[in-house]
């Protein structure tokens, strides 16, 4: 069995606790779980690119890693001021 495929499956499994927290916990806890889910998804795309043998998919992981920063900062700013 391919190790990259196995890693992708385990990382998908790691998204499940994040989903439970996002569905059930309080507002700031949800933000923390969202940040963790962003990191896990970035690594998931990285391992998936290795598994498929297409290095160009790594661009997606890089874009997600760069875009999750302003996304989460906007949430944090909003929750700090208005909620």
């Amino acid at each position: 069995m391919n190790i990259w495929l196995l890693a992708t499956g385990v990382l998908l499994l790691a998204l499940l606790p994040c989903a439970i927290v996002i569905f059930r916990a309080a507002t700031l806890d949800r933000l923390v779980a969202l940040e963790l889910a962003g990191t896990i998804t970035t690594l998931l795309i990285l391992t998936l690119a290795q598994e498929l043998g297409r290095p160009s998919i790594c661009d997606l992981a890089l874009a997600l890693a760069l875009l999750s920063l302003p996304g989460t900062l906007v949430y944090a700013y909003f929750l700090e001021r208005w909620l």
Partner: protein
Amino acid sequence: MSVREIIAAMLLGVGVFIELLCAVGVLVMRNPFDRLHYLAPATSLGPLAVAAAVLVAESDAQAKIKSVLVAVVLLATGPILTHATARAAWARLQAHPDTGETDQREES
């Protein structure tokens, strides 16, 4: 399996296991400040281990460079996100100290 593949598999296993452990930790803890601790290994050790696995296993230069870049970006942005989130949680706690937690508030 060659030695290279075994080393790559071990590094990948370590990285993935760290991510899984952090996800379970976020699920188990009970308030945002405790949960934030689990973001630190998930944004530093996990990506570094996965990038090292790609470096060892892969021969393509593009994949190597991009995975290292992803790890560096995650390493740089992780503390910023943690700090911003903790600041937001602290501000909410200061604004409504009577609730004791930063949750269970539906009003505006």
